[in-house]
């Protein structure tokens, strides 16, 4: 598989009144095309910062981040789709207006094709009949699906998912995980998921990046080969339990260091 994202020896510092804080230290990992990678780490270790760096919303202090063939800079927004902890649908817009927000903002040359694509996505993922509804009329799971489609419409190279399920109750969450996983795989997208939920990370991803506590650095990378079409089925793989314990221990060691 071809490498899509290559993060090499990235450091990130930020300044507070008191001191300079090192948030990421010599961070190195890569994500292949069509791979689903998850990043887990102790809370507050800088997982979201990594996503912001990849999205070009923050500049790295040193090191290189290469997406596709280009160094990540301020202008790689088109290549990135960002999904947040909450769906952040705009309540005053209809579902259709929400998912076409990016097209409205960027006014791309192939606007009509993108709008057609948006329509296709809505149809494919059973939201077409809701296109004229307002977000408040949809369930939590549906809203997350809309949020994912909103990012897919712009046809990004890489999807960044920042704990997109953390605001959902457990049952909805497992369902939405399946949904999102299915959509990402069938749209042939590469994705990076940041989460604090180990079982979620294990069930969804092909690669697991375990971070240390702050300053975060890569502690371990695990290539996952769990059997099962969907995340829910993967949870039933006999190796799941052992893997869970393994990651749990790695993270507990980190927490105790603090």
């Amino acid at each position, binding site marked *: 598989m071809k490498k899509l994202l290559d993060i090499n020896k990235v450091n990130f510092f930020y300044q507070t009144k008191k001191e300079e804080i090192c948030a990421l230290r010599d961070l190195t990992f890569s994500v292949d095309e069509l791979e689903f990678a998850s990043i887990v780490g102790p809370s507050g270790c800088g997982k979201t910062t990594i996503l912001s760096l990849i*999205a070009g*919303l923050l500049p790295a202090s040193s090191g290189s981040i290469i997406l596709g063939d280009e160094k990540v800079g301020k202008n790689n*927004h*088109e290549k*990135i*789709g*960002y999904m*947040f*902890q*909450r769906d*952040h649908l*705009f309540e*005053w817009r209809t579902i259709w207006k929400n998912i076409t*927000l*990016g097209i*409205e*903002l*960027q006014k791309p040359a192939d606007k009509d094709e993108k709008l057609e694509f948006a329509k296709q996505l809505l149809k494919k993922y059973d939201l077409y009949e809701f296109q004229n509804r307002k977000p408040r009329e949809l369930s939590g799971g549906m809203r997350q699906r809309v949020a994912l489609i909103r990012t897919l419409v*712009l046809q990004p190279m890489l999807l960044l998912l920042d704990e997109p399920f953390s605001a959902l109750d457990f049952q909805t969450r497992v369902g939405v995980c399946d949904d999102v996983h299915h959509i990402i795989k069938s749209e042939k997208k590469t994705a990076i998921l940041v989460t604090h939920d180990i079982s979620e990370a294990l069930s969804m991803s092909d690669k697991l990046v375990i971070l240390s506590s702050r300053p975060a650095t890569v502690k371990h990378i695990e290539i996952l080969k769990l059997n099962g079409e969907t995340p829910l089925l993967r949870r039933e793989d006999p190796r799941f339990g052992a893997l869970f314990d393994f990651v749990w221990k790695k993270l507990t060691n980190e927490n105790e260091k603090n």
Partner: protein
Amino acid sequence: MKTKKIKLPKCAPYSKAHERYLRKNRNDKIIVLSFQILILVAFIGLWELLAQTGVIDPFFVSSPSRIFNMLSSMISDGSIWRHIGITLLETILGFGIATLGGTLLAIILWWSEKLRRVLEPYIVVLNSLPKIALGPIIILWVGSGMSAIIIMCVLICIVMTTISMLNAFMSCDNDKILLMKSMKANKLQIFWKLVLPNAMNDFISVLKINVGLAWVGTVMGEYISSSAGLGYLIVYGSQIFRIDLVMMSTVVLCLLAAIMYLMVSWLEKWHNR
């Protein structure tokens, strides 16, 4: 051929319990409304009765019939319309200028963090200053009359508008702004498509508060200096001991303020539909 969606008739078959619920709901509404009307009627009736029987002196407290007579005589000679028109014009202008101006100021302050930080203490002081204290200065500067009253009204409303709208703009979720940025939105787009529509509910609350404040501003202004208007009638009436005139003007003010508030409420309903 396109098939039309059939709307269910409102009298769809309900269960007995649901029918009971609906009936209770309607009855409750009727009870509340009848008590509201009853209080008004009782108040007016008692007032009239006490005045007629001489228990209270209508010279000091007037009476509903005297107020009504005063109003109808001023309507028949047409003089009331001038006073209502002037006060209404002052209020609407003051309200409009303050709401738009205050919102515009809030936009500028939202846009520039530096300016916001520089002006913050001044806004705080202006907000706590009783604007009525500036009345004499305003008259000195722009002369007495309508413009002084409108300025008074604007001053009373504008600071509150700016502070509330700025708060509303600033309270926009950071992640939402980040989302817009990740979609390559520029600052104008962020404002226009996210921050402004996000603040619409607060804007309507500001309108509601301003409706009240604008009347305060206008009437206060008319107290200080005016030659016409409902506030003028109140001051004039009290000076020549014509309480009927004072009471009548107050009642008309009440009605006008209520109508304006209702209009904003409709706007709110339309916005939330």
